[in-house]
């Protein structure tokens, strides 16, 4: 009876995940969609706790260790709730990465425990061969190892991505890194194959009797100690690979990596679902795996790069050469605060281009204030949002929405590019690579081919940056040296506050 109700619980959970994702992709239903998926998740989790049954010696038992399970659930809920509530909106990407890592770690641990479970119930080892009391088929082995490898890579990678976004971990790149990573991946895959295609155990001893397994058909009931070392070797290798995989990937590519790792965790969850023949985990995991992969590809396309290119990471290598080539740039000119305030308050139309600098300075509210004060003076203000501005696609939209900026004022790239020629002033706040004309003009540039915001079409361009340092991609930006461009150095929030003060005093 209970087990049938549980199947229905899993069905409900699966349907809510699909509905939730569907609703999440529409602005008017997105919030409800999130709640629908959360409700389905709760049904799945509590259904499992109270209704799951396992057969031990022909008798059905409910889950054990309920006290421990509930303590872990409670602690996890409290910690998760508090950290998610307290985190600043600007730090959102790293939070998502961290939670993703937790999911990956969870999948990894499930595989370890499941493997340990076979060993724990096995008979004492004799002569390096361990006899199992439960059949460990090749298919189960594949599911366990796949969950282990994918979960570990996702966990280690997400933690490194989190550290990088926080600025705790720097980009690490060295000569031969690409080859080393390829080698690691090769060794990892070989080890997995070696473990899964277990060398058949040909003979073993039980109670002094030697049992010959001439055809190897009984190998699902036996495992050698070599395979146990191999299993934990694979775990260690997958963790190292996860770290090495994310190490060289530069900041501009971070959203792509997080999205990719997100879909990895989905696949790891699906592997665990396969292990337990659990439909909720299977559908949930595969849905996220597929949707996450598509999202990753969409992001790569927005930057006009292939996924392979992001992963192998040719970015760092070319950037040095490109930066060196354009070192004999002309002069840039600066603009004073009062001039900037003047130019903007007498413009007809101002387009604001936000970038990561805005997020770092937490200047979204001040930015909205500037927008309001300019509109009072009869200036039309809009925002041009590049698909990969910030550290995550849609990052800027979330930030500006937090500051109550009207949804309709945010233009996507194509629409913004149509409107730049009617703009008197473009104000760039901490964005760099997404407005670099090299992407259109210079085939040697590493970002060549990436669609950009064509801010040069406007009459005047004011660029707010903290310094002349190149942007995240590490390449120079011709835009800053053009005659119609003037620079306004300083922290975005501080500069905006000063401009507002100037406009008020005009």
């Amino acid at each position, binding site marked *: 009876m209970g087990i049938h109700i549980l199947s229905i619980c899993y069905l409900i959970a699966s349907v809510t995940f699909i509905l939730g994702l569907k609703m999440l992709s529409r602005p008017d239903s997105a919030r409800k969609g999130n709640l629908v998926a959360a409700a389905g998740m709760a049904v799945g989790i509590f259904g499992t706790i109270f209704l799951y049954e396992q057969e031990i010696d022909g008798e059905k038992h409910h889950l054990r260790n309920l006290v421990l399970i509930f303590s872990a659930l409670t602690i996890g809920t409290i910690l998760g709730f508090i950290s998610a509530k307290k985190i600043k909106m600007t730090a959102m990407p790293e939070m998502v990465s961290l939670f993703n890592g*937790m999911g990956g770690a969870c999948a990894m641990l499930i595989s370890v425990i499941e493997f340990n479970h076979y060993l724990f119930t096995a008979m004492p080892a004799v002569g390096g061969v361990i006899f199992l009391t439960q059949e460990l088929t090749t298919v189960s082995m594949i599911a366990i190892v796949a969950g282990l490898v994918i979960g570990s890579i996702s966990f280690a990678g997400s933690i490194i991505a989190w550290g990088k976004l926080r600025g705790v971990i720097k980009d690490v790149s060295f000569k031969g890194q690409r080859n080393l990573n390829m080698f690691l991946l090769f060794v990892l895959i070989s080890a997995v194959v070696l473990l899964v295609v277990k060398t058949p155990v040909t003979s073993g001893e039980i109670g002094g009797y030697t049992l010959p397994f001439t055809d190897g058909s009984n190998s699902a009931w036996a495992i050698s100690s070599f395979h146990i070392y191999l299993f934990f070797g694979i775990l260690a290798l997958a963790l190292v690979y996860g770290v090495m995989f994310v190490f060289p990937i530069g900041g501009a590519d971070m959203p792509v990596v997080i999205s990719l790792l997100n879909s990895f965790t989905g696949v790891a969850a699906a592997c665990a679902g396969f292990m337990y023949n659990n439909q909720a985990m299977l559908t949930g995991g595969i*849905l996220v795996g597929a949707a996450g992969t598509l999202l990753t590809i969409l992001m790569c396309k927005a930057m006009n790069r292939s996924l392979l290119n992001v992963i192998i990471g040719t970015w760092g290598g070319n950037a040095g050469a490109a930066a060196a080539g354009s070192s004999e740039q002309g002069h840039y000119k600066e603009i004073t605060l009062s001039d900037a305030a003047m130019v903007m308050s007498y413009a007809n139309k101002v387009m604001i281009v936000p970038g990561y600098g805005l997020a770092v300075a937490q200047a979204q509210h001040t930015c909205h204030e500037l927008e309001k004060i300019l509109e009072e003076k009869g200036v039309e203000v809009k925002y041009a949002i590049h698909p990969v501005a910030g550290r995550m696609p849609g990052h800027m939209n979330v930030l500006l929405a937090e500051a109550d900026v009207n949804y309709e004022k945010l233009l996507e790239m194509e629409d913004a590019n149509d409107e730049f020629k009617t703009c008197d002033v473009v104000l760039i706040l901490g964005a760099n690579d997404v407005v670099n004309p090299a992407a259109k003009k210079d085939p040697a540039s590493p970002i060549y081919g990436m669609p950009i915001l064509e801010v040069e079409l406007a009459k005047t361009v004011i660029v707010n940056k903290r310094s002349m340092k190149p942007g995240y991609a590490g390449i120079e930006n011709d835009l800053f040296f053009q005659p119609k461009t003037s620079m306004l150095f300083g922290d975005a929030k501080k500069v905006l506050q000063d401009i507002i003060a100037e406009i008020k005093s005009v």
Partner: protein
Amino acid sequence: MQSILDFFSLHIEIIYIVILSIFLGIEVIGRVPSVLHTPLMSGANAIHGVVVIGAIIVMGEAQPGNYIALVLGFLAVLLGTLNVVGGFVVTDRMLEMFKNKKKPQKPATPDAA
């Protein structure tokens, strides 16, 4: 060869679920406007927290004397719960900001890039 065929006939339902879910996953988010990319990624992130169900099962099946399984299982349930709860709460906070705003008359253009 025989074992591969056996695998397919034994797990044919799961194979169907996997393939259909892949198409569904792609189809469901195929028309998402870029403004919702971050919340969607975050929401998907919470959904793969469903892996916590596996952690609960593995924890509940652990023999009382198997301390390794108990400790690791406890950790797995804890981390999985963090993923689920944190993921949904963060997503809700992001989407909270979109409420009470004037919605665009026409649905936002899909991310054609």
